[in-house]
């Protein structure tokens, strides 16, 4: 189906149906439609669409209006000079009361101070003076004392004295201080020693090659 080249006129057709054009514009469009078969067909089509619009159920206007919130509930203040939106009436929050705010501030500060004091007193004075230490043998040259938890205090672990379950024995080596408390040198030493440990024993038995001398084999060849 061909279409009118004047998109402007085609755009005006729905407005012509709804009567929303000015009188002069409506007359102009009417004149065009009278001389344009394509627009006349399209106008008929649009009228058919309008006529075939699905019927809407009858609405209960009163029921809808009853459900609409009233201006008072919406918080609009009523006055003679017109309506202005008023602040909605909300119950005052407990925290917005000045006395409660002051009391809450005091409580927070007190609780924070007490927790600091308790935390400081809980530390062992001996540990504060000299933290427990474990001596880790760093190779054969020197031993490094590393601050650790009290459990293995004074014990020493050497590479040649690894137990069958080195992980289990090392589990007690919890640091009292943070890792960042150690110097770079201590950390490097500790890591190198940890690398030497074999935390997972090999499950494959080592191949044993018995030493056989020539004298042992001489009899077998016979």
């Amino acid at each position, binding site marked *: 189906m061909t279409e009118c080249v004047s998109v402007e006129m*085609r755009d005006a057709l729905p407005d012509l149906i709804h009567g929303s054009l000015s009188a002069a514009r409506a007359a102009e469009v009417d004149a065009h439609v009278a001389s344009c078969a394509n627009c006349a067909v399209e106008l008929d089509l649009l009228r058919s669409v309008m006529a075939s619009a699905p019927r809407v159920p009858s609405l209960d206007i009163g029921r809808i209006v009853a459900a609409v919130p009233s201006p008072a509930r919406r918080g609009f203040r009523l006055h003679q000079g017109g309506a202005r939106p008023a602040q909605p009436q909300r119950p005052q929050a407990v925290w917005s009361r000045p006395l409660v705010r002051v009391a809450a501030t005091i409580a927070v500060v007190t609780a924070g101070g007490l927790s600091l004091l308790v935390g400081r007193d809980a530390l062992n004075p001996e540990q504060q003076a000299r933290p427990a230490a474990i001596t880790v043998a760093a190779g054969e040259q020197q031993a490094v004392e590393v601050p650790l938890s009290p459990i293995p205090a004074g014990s020493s672990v050497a590479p040649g004295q690894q137990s069958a379950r080195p992980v289990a024995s090392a589990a007690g080596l919890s640091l009292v201080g943070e890792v960042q408390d150690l110097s770079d040198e201590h950390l490097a030493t500790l890591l190198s020693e940890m690398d030497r440990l074999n935390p997972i024993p090999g499950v494959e038995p080592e191949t044993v090659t018995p030493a056989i001398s020539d004298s042992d084999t001489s009899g077998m060849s016979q």
Partner: protein
Amino acid sequence: MNPLSRGAAGDTDKVLIERWKAGDSRAATELVSRHADSLARFATSAGEREEIEELVQDTFVRAFGSLDAFRGESSLRTWLFTIERRLMLDRRRAERRQHSLVPIEASEAATEYNALDGMVAQETAIQVRRAVGALSPMQREVFTLRVEQGLSYKEIAEILETTAGAARVHYHNAVRAVKEFLND
């Protein structure tokens, strides 16, 4: 148009809104009477079949509940259509979640109008509704808002959250598609 759709004084929507804010409950009645049918027609054309009145009511409840947010930059009718369309989208999303419904395809939408046989007497009208139902959702919304509601492209763009140029393109594509459907 509903005979009650015009207020006795012929007040504009803006005046009625101000009257309602000032406590005149009759203004609400006039506003609802003026726009309820258009909202119901739009919902029906958009494919809503059930609880049309509830949808229209929810639209007005939401609109009146936030009238202080209505700045009057667009017409009240455009704003109401926008609210109603969002409610329809919410409703469809909820239905899809509940029933795992597949969105209605255009070909299926066309067959929906078989239910209109009892409502629309003429075969031509049925064919027209089928043609409209076969449009894509966006084309159908633009087409019905333009033809059945007489909204401008600018108003349609506001409702559908698109541009007036895009609405215009959708409209002309829809007209072409309806013509082709009817000629097949």
